[in-house]
């Protein structure tokens, strides 16, 4: 048999095996990336309920920010994304079965600590020009161009933004009280 035929057959077999494999893993990734999937763990459910009532879900632009938009690296950073997602999935399952009580406050602090400003800045990119909110402009400047030793996280001021017990559904467009960052959490 000619060499190229062997090669073509091998490539063909590879494709036959790889296509369903990739397709399945892609399908799995998509299925396990929905807020509904996250809410299937009872530990996470309250967070999803709170998220659903927040302005990250309800706004006039119709933009919905999913769990992984904030909590995982961007999917185009394929390796970081797959690694972080698999690591957290496996860890959560292990902790669910082998460790007792889920400490919500501790988990919240851990999430704040893990947040990278890049996560927020995937969407919130135009932060320096707000003619009607000059205080915010000033504060954002001190984050985007932080002085050495004064690096800050977005979530240092913008905490309690999504997962807070507000008791009612918030709509960004009908918000009566203007949104304000709360000031530095650590003060």
């Amino acid at each position, binding site marked *: 048999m000619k060499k190229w035929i062997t090669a073509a057959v091998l490539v063909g077999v590879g494709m036959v095996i790889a296509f369903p494999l990739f397709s399945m893993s892609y399908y799995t990734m998509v299925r396990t990336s929905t807020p509904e999937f996250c809410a299937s763990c009872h530990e996470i459910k309250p967070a999803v309920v709170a998220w659903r009532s927040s302005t990250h879900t309800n706004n006039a632009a119709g933009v919905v920010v999913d769990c992984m938009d904030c909590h995982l690296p961007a999917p185009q950073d394929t390796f970081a994304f797959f690694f972080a997602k698999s690591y957290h999935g496996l860890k959560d399952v292990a902790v669910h079965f082998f460790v007792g009580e889920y400490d919500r406050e501790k988990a919240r602090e851990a999430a704040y600590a893990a947040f990278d400003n890049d996560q927020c800045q995937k969407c919130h990119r135009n932060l320096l020009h707000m003619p009607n909110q000059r*205080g915010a402009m000033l504060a954002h400047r001190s984050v985007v161009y932080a002085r050495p030793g004064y690096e800050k996280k977005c979530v240092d001021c913008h905490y309690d933004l999504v997962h807070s017990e507000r008791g009612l559904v918030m709509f960004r467009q009908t918000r009566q009280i203007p949104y304000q960052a709360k*000031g530095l959490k650590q003060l």
Partner: protein
Amino acid sequence: MRCTLIFLSIGLLVVGLMAAPGLAQPNFAKVKEYRIERSVPPEAQACIECHRETTPGIFADWAKSRHANANITCLDCHLIQPGDQDIAQGHEKYYGRSDMPWGEAKYKMPIASIVTPKDCSRCHPDEATQYSKSKHANTIEIIWKLDPWLNKGMNSDNERKVGCLNCHGTEVKIDENGKIDPNTWPNAGVGRLNLDGSKGSCTSCHTRHRFSVGEARKPEACDQCHLGPDHPQIEIYEESKHGTIYHAYQDEYNFDAAGGTWTAGVDYRAPTCAACHMSGSGKEPTSHDVTQRLSWETQAPLSVRPQDFKPFPSGSDWKAERQKMKNICSSCHGDSWINDFYDGFDKAVTEYNEVYFKPAKAKLEELYEKGLLDKTKFFDERLEVEYYELWHHEGRRARMGAMMMAPDYAWWHGFYECKLRFANYMEEANHLIETGQKAYIAKDFPNATGDTTKPEKIFGKTQ
């Protein structure tokens, strides 16, 4: 006769003409105008229009501020979220009053009277962070760890409110009616414990509602608290060459230079308090941590290095901090001037420690040990007062006077008084030891009724 009449009527006319402008324009203060020419939310406009009439002083102050320049309105600082505990309930009723301009329900916003460093940190995060590390912000913790007036309950709660805590700061509380507890308010103390957990008050130095940078750069911003027999920093400053030059040349000073540009020799001739303790100079950056750049704790009973100050260790290295202060000095002074000055200061501190304080303290402990002095209370025996004033009054004046180069405070109000106090104190102490006679205890020590519970917010509940 006719002549007289003509003169009289001309005279009346002249007087009338002179008085007319006065009648037409009574001598009232000019009203500061306010036109909405930039985007302001209607609710904030309502605040401004109403407060222009009800509190014109606050309005005019704000109108002249940098905040008004930047379109920062009342709401940017006073707005809170519904359900917050410090919501000003009494304020809400004004939105229903038809006699008030803009008194309509549609402008209703939840607001808090008290604005805290945490609120300020929304726009000024770095300044608030630096401030939170200072002894200013943490002064309540420090005094509760040291002070016998508080810990032994030797003064009354109101003496504290109108005295000590006015500068140090109260622990703000909400009473059972949901209003700010009047025992804790009003207050703009530097270490005020706020309801949101933050410490202090930016308006101690940048007073409401002007919030001026220039104001905080003047010694007058500091002198409300840093004066008097026990911490006469302002008097010391005024006696020093720095203060003398400030008084002679302050009309040439440019206090309103932008942050980071206030320059020695250009914007000011001799430094103010802020120039050395906070402002940037040369390569040294500005900081709102007023207690950095210190190399001795000259207010403590025994002078120690800031990192060894037990109630609130600075977490810094005094040598590095001294170098920072020297860098500030070197904007105007040469090395030998700076080093030789510090030499004198170090000697003053060491002499105070070794010659005056340590022997006095040893004597006090001996008296307690021998049962000649009673440890139950403090200040109710004369030797305790003498010991206290030795370090708390003249001992501080001597050290601080040496530090900020005020000869009269270093010597006459300082070491001279230390000498007399020390001699009298030792005479009385030795007399008690020789005779075995117990000191007189003032049974009628007045108004020693203050609460001795340490603030829960800092020390927790376990007491």
